[in-house]
């Protein structure tokens, strides 16, 4: 198939895609669109009516992730999140789960690099009860020494299980450790066993007082409700939670990387794998979308240059992948390859760089860019499927861009990106001196996860 042919078949769907997605954007936002308001105590509230099912999704974000952890206190974000599950003044431990699960609903929660969240999808009749519980634990979490010890055990076990049961997990941890020498992203989201063991109730108490408060949270509701009444209910339930609005402590910036970094990590594996990462930008930066498209053209998709070269054409790799990690402070673009046995990691790495050079010199077609745009538009559409993911995306969008609908508007921004912009970001970010490479090789006998 020629590039001209591809250009022809790609052009039509792209134009249609733009029209469709704009329609989707407005359909998702309903006639009323996203209602974005801030209560007197600083709590940001996003509401989106969707009457297609008698459901509601609740997403409560706190800007309380591992990026705010101090040296020696790693793992605190996860431990604090676990303590929040210990109930509160008015609710026993487990009551929240019982309410939602016995209605057939689902819950999610997590603390990661940039934040922490509690989310639930439930029958709309239970909305008030869930909001009452969330408000209660925001104001009166049940922080007891037993709860803190139990949370530490849960987090330590989870960390251990992740590192020990996924033999490839150390690869990503090592990449972040090598790339971020000053910023907390380098310490990972799971904390160190020593730090977790040394955490005390006071640490958790201070963390929750600093970060789990209205002005550092975003509450998003999507579902079958009436905005006016629901907003009044939210204000009634959350509006009197006190907040002194003291500024959130700043985070140490990552200095520019000057020179390649490399490491080989012990592998308890049969399949060799390598990963390469390059520092990029904050998730609110205008280079973000060209970088996301660059990742798709280069390595994320099955029609990407690297997948074609290493999997489809040469059979060197079992699979390849990658993408852009949209960190709040400073993200990265990365690519990896799991090799078929008998192939050399260094040869595969060299082939990856040749494909990077092709992108830098503009030796990719308009068709490649069209494909990447179509992929990205579909990705955004898929992220809108279901009220719970939609609530999560609205919340993240509000946090990054100050606009709960911006993530859908990005569909338009994707269309405007040109080949020269892709070339430009490739040249600026995919530099040798900005590169970190990690190998995971079979045959090393050290135990994993240590």
């Amino acid at each position, binding site marked *: *198939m020629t590039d001209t042919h*591809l250009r022809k078949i790609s052009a039509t*769907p792209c134009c249609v*895609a733009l029209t*469709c997605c704009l*329609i*989707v954007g407005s359909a*998702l936002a309903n006639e009323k669109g996203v209602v974005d308001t801030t209560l007197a105590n600083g709590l940001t509230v996003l509401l989106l009516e969707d009457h297609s099912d008698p*459901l509601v999704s609740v997403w409560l974000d706190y800007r309380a992730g591992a990026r705010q952890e101090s040296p020696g206190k790693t793992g605190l974000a996860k431990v604090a999140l676990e303590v929040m599950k210990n109930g509160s003044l*008015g609710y026993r*431990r*487990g009551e929240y*789960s*019982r309410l939602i*699960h*016995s*209605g*057939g609903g*689902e819950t999610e929660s997590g603390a990661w690099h940039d934040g922490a969240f509690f989310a639930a999808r439930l029958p709309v009749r239970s909305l008030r009860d869930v909001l*009452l519980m969330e*408000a209660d634990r925001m104001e009166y979490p049940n922080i007891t020494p037993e709860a803190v010890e139990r949370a530490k055990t*849960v987090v330590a*076990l989870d960390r*251990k*299980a992740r590192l*020990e*049961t*996924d*033999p490839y997990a150390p690869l990503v941890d090592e990449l972040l450790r090598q790339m971020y020498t000053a910023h907390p992203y380098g310490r990972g989201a799971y904390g160190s066993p020593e730090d977790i063991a040394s955490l005390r109730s006071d640490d958790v108490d201070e963390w929750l007082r600093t970060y789990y408060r209205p002005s550092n949270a975003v509450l998003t509701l999507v579902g079958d409700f009436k905005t006016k009444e629901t907003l009044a209910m939210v204000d*009634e*339930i959350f509006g009197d939670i006190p907040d002194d609005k003291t500024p959130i402590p700043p985070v140490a910036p990552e200095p520019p990387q000057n020179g390649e970094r490399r490491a080989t990590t012990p592998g*308890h594996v*049969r*399949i*060799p794998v390598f990963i390469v990462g390059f520092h990029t930008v904050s998730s609110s930066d205008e280079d973000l979308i060209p970088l996301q498209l660059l990742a798709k053209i280069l390595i994320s998709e*099955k*029609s990407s240059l690297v*997948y*074609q070269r290493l999997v*489809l054409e040469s059979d060197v790799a*079992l699979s390849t992948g990658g993408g852009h990690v949209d960190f709040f402070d400073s993200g990265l673009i990365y690519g990896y390859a*799991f090799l078929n*046995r008998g192939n050399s990691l260094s040869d595969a790495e060299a082939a990856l760089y040749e494909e990077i050079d092709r992108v830098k010199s503009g030796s990719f077609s308009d068709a490649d860019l*069209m*494909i990447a745009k*179509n*992929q990205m*538009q*579909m990705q955004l*559409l*898929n992220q*809108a*499927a*279901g*009220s719970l993911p939609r609530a999560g995306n609205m919340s993240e969008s509000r946090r990054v861009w100050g606009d709960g609908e911006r993530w859908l508007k990005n569909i338009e921004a994707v269309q405007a990106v040109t080949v020269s912009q892709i070339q430009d970001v490739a040249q600026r970010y995919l530099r040798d001196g900005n590169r970190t490479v990690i190998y995971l090789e079979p*045959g090393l006998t*050290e*135990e*994993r996860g*240590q």
Partner: protein
Amino acid sequence: MTRALERVIATVGITALLCGAAVSDAEVTPRVEKRTLQSGMRVVLLENNELPLLQIRLLAEAGSIFDPDERSGVAAVTVKALLAGAGERNAVQLQRHIDSLGATVWTEISRERSQINGVFHSRDALSALRLIYDLVAAPQLTDAELENYIRRQKSAVFQLYDLGRPIMDDAAYELFFPGLPWGRLPYGEPDELSDITPGDVRAFQQKYYSPERLKLVIAGDFDSRRLMTDVATVFMAQSRGERESPPAPVAPEPSERLRIVLLDEPGSPSAWVGFYALGAPFSSAHQQAAQRMLGHLLGGEPELSYIGRKLIEERSLISRLESATPFQKLWGLLQLEMSCPRENVVDVIAETLDELRLMSETRISKRELEDGKRFFRGYYALGFETAGSGATRLAEALAGGEAHNYHDSLLQAINTLTPDDLMKVAADLFANDRLAVVVYGDADRFERSLNEFGLVLRKRTGERGE
């Protein structure tokens, strides 16, 4: 009313809500359009206009139980190789075509079936249908591509050995059905993969991807009547093949003692522990209902389930717990899988066996059972919220050889369950000849201590990468 006061009232209210509300028998499956084409292919369409997306699930009765003798892995290689060029497009062109539509297409293999899945923009419905047709009816399957895929499958198997968890239920099936099709590894034994030829793959595709073995589910944004016409037109050219029934179910050999399979992974500091209970054929809705309820009560939400409360909340022995009851036709399976540090393996097995035993000896309270019923009522209703989850639900029902609205019958059966039913089914399921325990980890660390529980069978998990 102050919030503090309302908290107290709410707590009482929630309890009342949980205890008092009756479980409705209303149907959860939305209306669908269904038809069997002249060729024999069954089609089920579910409209969901939330987003301009199409979710496609094509089920083929072409799982690993149909692998030729001593050629395990043929079914797995075949379904993957359908993407190695189809119609007029070679592998690279095909992938670029899929990506240019912004679509995603992926395949799956299990014992009973293989599956092609896709997500497309709804504007591309016709292109999507033609593409799926090409994959099943006109794959290229060239020698060169198939040799690559066969080699690659061997690497893929070693990657599964590295991960551990994906191979655990296979060890249980191997134990229950030694030497039988159900006991084969769905992804293939590395030694046997080397013997597969491109001809084996082409013959398998010819025989097992004929239309009467196919079931097509599409959910998403479309007009059902129009799309059904398009499906019939696109798939019209596919001709019928010969029908071959799956191997008949064979009851597992009786066993006096509990059997524990150790998948030895020297040096692994952590372990996966799985409990696999072989149930009745899928068509027994009552048995299925009981199995699902047992799975939920034992290993559902960690804070609420018996094993979760004991092993996570009280004793912090495990870090992950998941229960599942896969949709398959000939055998139901209730599985409970958990990960733990290797030093906890013995305690985990002892505590879990204790919970399983209690299930067959003690009646659970009516309240707990009613909570469970309410959970399933909501769970299956919420399962049709998006086109993707709706397509998956319908595909599950069809995979079990049932009608599209199987979840409604299942819910009815769940609603009639009594504590005595659960005790009886638990006693059957957790008997020694129906239960297998599989441990993936460094066997030297716990093998001796496991002898007290039953017969220990040790296996290596395949060569290392030296």
